[in-house]
């Protein structure tokens, strides 16, 4: 292996940085979008044809653009938001745009699974729409959110590998530039093993929490 452990450690830090920051912003966007997509549906508590008809295709379009294309396509937007279009921080903008809509679909599915009877019971109590969302919809879907969040985190790790294209760094970038382009198989193996281990850990943590939350339901 031709690379020093310093490079690996830095790459690992970059990956974790990109994943965690994108997860925070993507998670917020995903929940807000997902909740909006559900409550503005026909027959739901805040039915709004226009909002739904606007958001639904936006989510679909963002979901259908391959990440490597999204990465370069939104460079002007990235520059506007973080002031630069290259580097680790710059990679976060497309990552958020990639993962937010994806997470919103998962959130939407979880929320639609909440028992309609429970929603009706809460409406009958005279709850405001905001109370219904915060006290009933989100808590009832929480167990399923944790699993979705796990899935999203793992796809984020996959997406960060492509961030190398705009100088984002990270483990995937190391595998490509040092391993693939310099024919250093050992580096590829090491980075891949590291990625596999990280994914395993995240999946186990997610499953653990999900079980804990759902123990009685």
């Amino acid at each position, binding site marked *: 292996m031709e690379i020093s452990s310093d490079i690996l450690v830095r790459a690992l830090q970059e990956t974790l940085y990109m994943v965690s920051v994108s997860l925070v912003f993507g998670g917020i966007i995903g929940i807000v979008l997902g909740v909006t997509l559900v409550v503005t549906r026909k027959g739901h508590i805040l039915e709004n044809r226009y909002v739904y008809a606007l958001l639904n295709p936006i989510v679909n379009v963002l979901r259908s653009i391959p990440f490597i294309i999204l990465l370069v396509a939104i460079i002007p937007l990235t520059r506007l938001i973080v002031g630069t279009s290259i580097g680790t921080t710059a990679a976060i903008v497309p990552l958020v745009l990639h993962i937010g809509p994806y997470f919103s679909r998962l959130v939407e599915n979880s929320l639609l699974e909440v028992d309609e009877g429970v929603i009706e019971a809460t409406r009958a*109590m005279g709850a*405001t729409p905001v109370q219904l969302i915060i006290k009933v919809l989100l*808590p009832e879907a929480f167990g399923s959110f944790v699993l979705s969040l796990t899935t999203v985190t793992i796809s984020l790790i996959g997406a960060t590998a492509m961030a190398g294209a705009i100088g984002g760094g990270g483990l995937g970038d190391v595998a490509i530039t040092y391993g693939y382009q310099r024919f250093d198989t050992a580096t590829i193996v090491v980075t891949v093993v590291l990625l596999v281990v990280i994914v395993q850990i995240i999946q186990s943590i997610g499953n653990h929490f999900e079980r804990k939350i759902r123990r*009685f339901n």
Partner: protein
Amino acid sequence: MIEFNDVTKVFTNKKQQVMALQNIDLHIQQGDIFGVIGYSGAGKSTLLRLVNALEIPTTGEVLVQGKNLARLSKKELRQEQKKIGMIFQHFNLLQSRNVYENIALPLELEQQSKVDIDRKVKEALAFVNLTDKAQHFPEQLSGGQKQRVGIARALVTNPELLLCDEATSALDPQTTIAILQLLKRVNKVFGITILLITHEMEVIKEICNRVAVMEEGAIIETGQVFDVFAQPKKATTKQFAQMIVRDDVPVVIHELLSANRYQGRVFHFKFLGDSTGKPIISHIAKHYEVDLTILFGNIMEIQSTFFGHLMVEIIGDDVEIAKVLQFAEQSQVNIQEVS
């Protein structure tokens, strides 16, 4: 308490309109336990949801304590909804909250203080006898216990009215009786008016004082439970009445009759209310030249009124039997000859 004035409800689907309720006129008095019975699809559920404005009438008006909820602002409506408790067939408890937290939910929505919430939830838990289950989750409870949590949750805000949506339909017969007794206590102890919908005659018989029978979105009969089911007029009402008032002539009596196995003539005596308590049969035996054989019979109670029927074979000559019939009629017994 609740008034339906010429209420119609139409659901509009993509291409078709469904008339869920038509020309409903109904008055429910303070303190009533009012039952609405009907087969599924009769419109009971829609009727119930009009009361707390989960549905809005297409035409006509529903008044609760004189207020038309459909006309209120959203804020005023929510205020009124808090005075109406509701329980459901499938309980509709939050899986993410334990029993205590489920009951606390309506109070949290009103932003009451923790101290008040704690006191009220504990009172409600004690009333439904579930104090020891406060920290359990709904998944760990039986159906009857879940419904008791539902009742506690509905009562914790001190409502004036309780709506019951097939509240016992998912429960076994024994648990049904226990829940009905609990509802009766709710009515007696707190003076809460109860409006319930059901397809189970047992529920009506057990706790309701007044009833409405629904069919195809309309109310076909309404009145005191005893009056409606002792002398049902419409076919559907008769079917429901048959579930509790078994006054049909047993098939075997018809068979024996057509085989000429009786010496005398067979009559069907129906006793209603007062006549049930009178010594009519012994009077006939003592004062008329006839012999009596009681072939079959039963007596039941609806809303503390007795209702009986007897299959009696009368042996004697026709003149004497005519006198018996005359006497029975004077005593307000309904008599029909079985042939």
